[in-house]
């Protein structure tokens, strides 16, 4: 079986998964009580039942559920996610589009930070298994994991933003004078604003990745070829970083793909704390306002990102390990 066939098969396999996702989200949402009505309008004395009925018809909520779903899928096939139910009636894609870059930027940065810190930590912990270093880092990464993110965020804001007054408290960039800044000043300004959010969104992930690297590394270090390399008298550094690490990191690719939904999910907390206008906040307010189209649109985007991540991980894997292409993969 060629690589192309493999790719095609994988891609086709994603289609039912994708529609499964939309189906589940659609029905979970619509089974819930409550209806999308611009919040206070519901309770407004000037809102007559007729007007309400008219709004429902405008939103298409008077049709049976399966009709609504079919309509939504039809739109999706034309890459149309529909219009928001909120009073601004904007296109869902426009709403997501303006928020997505910030969320992706922060998540990519925090992912990089996680990998840069967690991999060396994990490797060293594995090499020196059960040493003091191993134990201390274990406790430290678990401490970082165990601290509720919003609490850490506030403590950091209080310390760096108020007590030391060296970092901005919230927002994405300075309010005044930003437009006059040079490109590099702007970059610096963004960097200062993003230090805390990126840090907060990263620390929770350290534990997972460093522990994963550690156990994966331990596994590899037990393999024959590592023993062979050692027996050949190669320096320990070369053995570990050239031979062992490369193989140990392979499974991490899968984990990376799978961690996308979790990262975007975590965004709602730090975006709300740091007043960052990202997808997390959009999704949260959509949940609260029963803004079905926006909610569906967001879930679709996250699903697509995750599926893409998984696909890339698969391709990466297949490129490295030809056995997978031929369908020998039995576990996970």
């Amino acid at each position, binding site marked *: 079986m060629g690589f192309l066939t493999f790719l095609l098969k994988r891609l086709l396999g994603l289609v039912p998964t994708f529609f499964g996702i939309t189906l589940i989200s659609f029905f979970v949402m619509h089974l819930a*009580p409550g209806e999308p009505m611009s*919040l206070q309008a519901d309770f407004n*004395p000037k809102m007559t039942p007729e*007007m309400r009925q008219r709004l429902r018809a405008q939103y298409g909520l008077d049709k049976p559920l399966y009709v609504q779903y079919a309509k939504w899928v039809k739109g999706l096939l034309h890459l149309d996610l529909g219009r928001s139910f909120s009073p601004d009636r904007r296109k869902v894609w426009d709403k997501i589009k*303006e928020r997505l870059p910030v969320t992706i930027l922060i998540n990519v940065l925090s992912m990089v930070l996680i990998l840069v810190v967690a991999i060396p930590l994990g490797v060293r912990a594995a090499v020196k298994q059960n040493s003091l270093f191993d134990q201390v880092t274990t406790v430290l990464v678990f401490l970082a994991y165990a601290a509720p993110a919003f609490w850490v965020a*506030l403590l950091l804001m209080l310390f760096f933003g108020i007590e030391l007054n060296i970092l901005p*408290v919230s927002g994405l960039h300075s309010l005044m004078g930003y437009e006059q800044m040079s490109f590099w000043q702007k970059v610096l300004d963004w960097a200062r604003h993003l230090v805390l959010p990126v840090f907060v969104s990263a620390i929770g992930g350290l534990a997972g990745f460093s522990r994963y690297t550690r156990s994966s590394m331990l596994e590899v270090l037990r393999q024959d070829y590592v023993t062979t390399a050692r027996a050949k008298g190669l320096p320990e550094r070369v053995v570990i970083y050239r031979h062992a690490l490369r193989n140990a990191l392979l499974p991490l690719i899968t984990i990376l793909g799978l961690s996308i939904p979790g990262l975007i999910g975590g965004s709602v907390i730090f975006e709300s704390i740091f007043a960052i206008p990202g997808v997390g906040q959009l999704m949260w307010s959509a949940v609260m306002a029963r803004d079905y189209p926006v909610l569906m649109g967001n879930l679709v985007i996250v699903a697509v990102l995750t599926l893409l991540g998984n696909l890339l991980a698969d391709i990466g894997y297949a490129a490295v390990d030809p056995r997978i292409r031929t369908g020998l993969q039995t576990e996970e």
Partner: protein
Amino acid sequence: MSERVFRSGRRFLQLFILLSGLVVWSLCQCPNGWAAGQEKPAYGDAIVVGSIGDASNLIPMLATDATSHEIAGLIYNGLVKYDKDLNLVGDLAESWEIKQGGKEIIFHLKRGVKWQDGVPFTSKDVLFGFKTIIDPKTPTAYAGDFLEVERADAPDPYTFRVVYKEPFAPALSSWGDIVVLPEHLLKGKDITKSPLARHPVGLGPYKFRLWKTQERIELDANPDYFDGRPYLDRYIMRIIPDPATMFMELKAGGLDWMGLSPIQYKRQTDTPFFKKNFKKYKYLSFSYTYLGYNLRHPFFKDKRVRQAISYAIDKKEIIRGVLLGLGVVATGPYKPDAWFYNPNVKRYPYDPEKAKSLLASCGWKDTDGDGILDKDGRRFSFTVLTNQGNSLRDKTAQIIQYRLKQIGIEMKIRQLEWTAFINDFIDKRRFEAVILGWTLGQDPDIYDIWHSSKTGPKQLNFIGYKNKEVDRLLVLGRRTFDKEKRKEIYFKIQEILAEDQPYTFLYVPMALPIIHARFHGIHPAPAGISYNFIRWWVPKNEQKYILP
């Protein structure tokens, strides 16, 4: 911003409605808004305001949230507005005549007013706004008052005439800033898809500059404003969803104006830093919070039971514990400084013994010794519903729960997400009791909340209150124009409500804005502080933001 009731909760909108179509944003008519004899105001600088929620739509008649109305209030004007003493005065209207015993109003409009794109403002814009708001295709929540209109026309560019089916006392006040729209930009277009929703063109003191969703909204001073250019060059609203972050941002210098919570007001802002850099204000907000009973429920049919609960709740304790003293006891559906407020109605001071004996007289006794009263084998246990994300209401509910338990009533608390709350519980009448609030208008008309014809599905008299005398008075109040006569009518209504206790009226909270000390010209008045916002200014040497 006079409506900037503190919201200690999340990004939920306040559980209030706008009773009057007229948004309370009102700008000072007189250019001499500052006290005489002071130094001359300077132009320049900007003000940064913090808001928990983002705006939704900047066409006022399409928006229902407080933030949208705050911003739109600076961009649009109405025919009339309330001045600092809450008197109705002309805004875009130079004057008006009331004819046919109140059935007809003729507005004479100001001349030379221009939309921000340079097109002159005329009576056609008002007529267009009116036609739009009553158009069944317009998804607005404010059509109600305008459906009372029989016909409206614009005989010439500076005259607008409206005739009502019957005399309608709240008529004049309904012609506020939600109904005036630029006809030349909207005519023949679908208002729900109009770009004006995000790039408004108004004729008010500020012009739209930019709106970054969920981040900030910026407005620039309108140099051609008909009532004089505002002093502050720019108005920036920053959206900060978390109240703790917002307060830190204030401290770090990133905000000039926000609404404080009672704890922040009392305990966190008396430091030398705040005294030097900020000024705090407090005044009664235009709202009240209540415990409402479902009067169809067998527990609450008897007014003695409701009275007993009112006696069992220590309202002063709630004001002490929840508002930290920053509020007053509510005795009825109005705030104490309104001209139609009746101070002499029956009150319910904290008296648990009286509560117990009242309950005993209705047959509620603890016969099985479990600490909870019972009657005919039924325990006195009910659930109170309130909305999520409002920490003041949440604490209030917990205090009430604690006090009721002491007289043998078990009250469970259930917090609900707003839309589910309204659709599935209030609208379908599936509730026993609620803790909610109403926003108050400047007009005493409360027909929609208390008239027995408004108890139908999805209507506002959701507790099912029916009183023939109140019904009669409510109708009479709507048809009466004489202020003294209206006052008498509404005094009587308050007496009946106080006796009946369909709600236990709890408290009127205070609005607690804090503003940076560099702003001059702020003079608290019955209308709050923001009525003269365009006359606020910063001396040249204190200006913080120099705009290019």
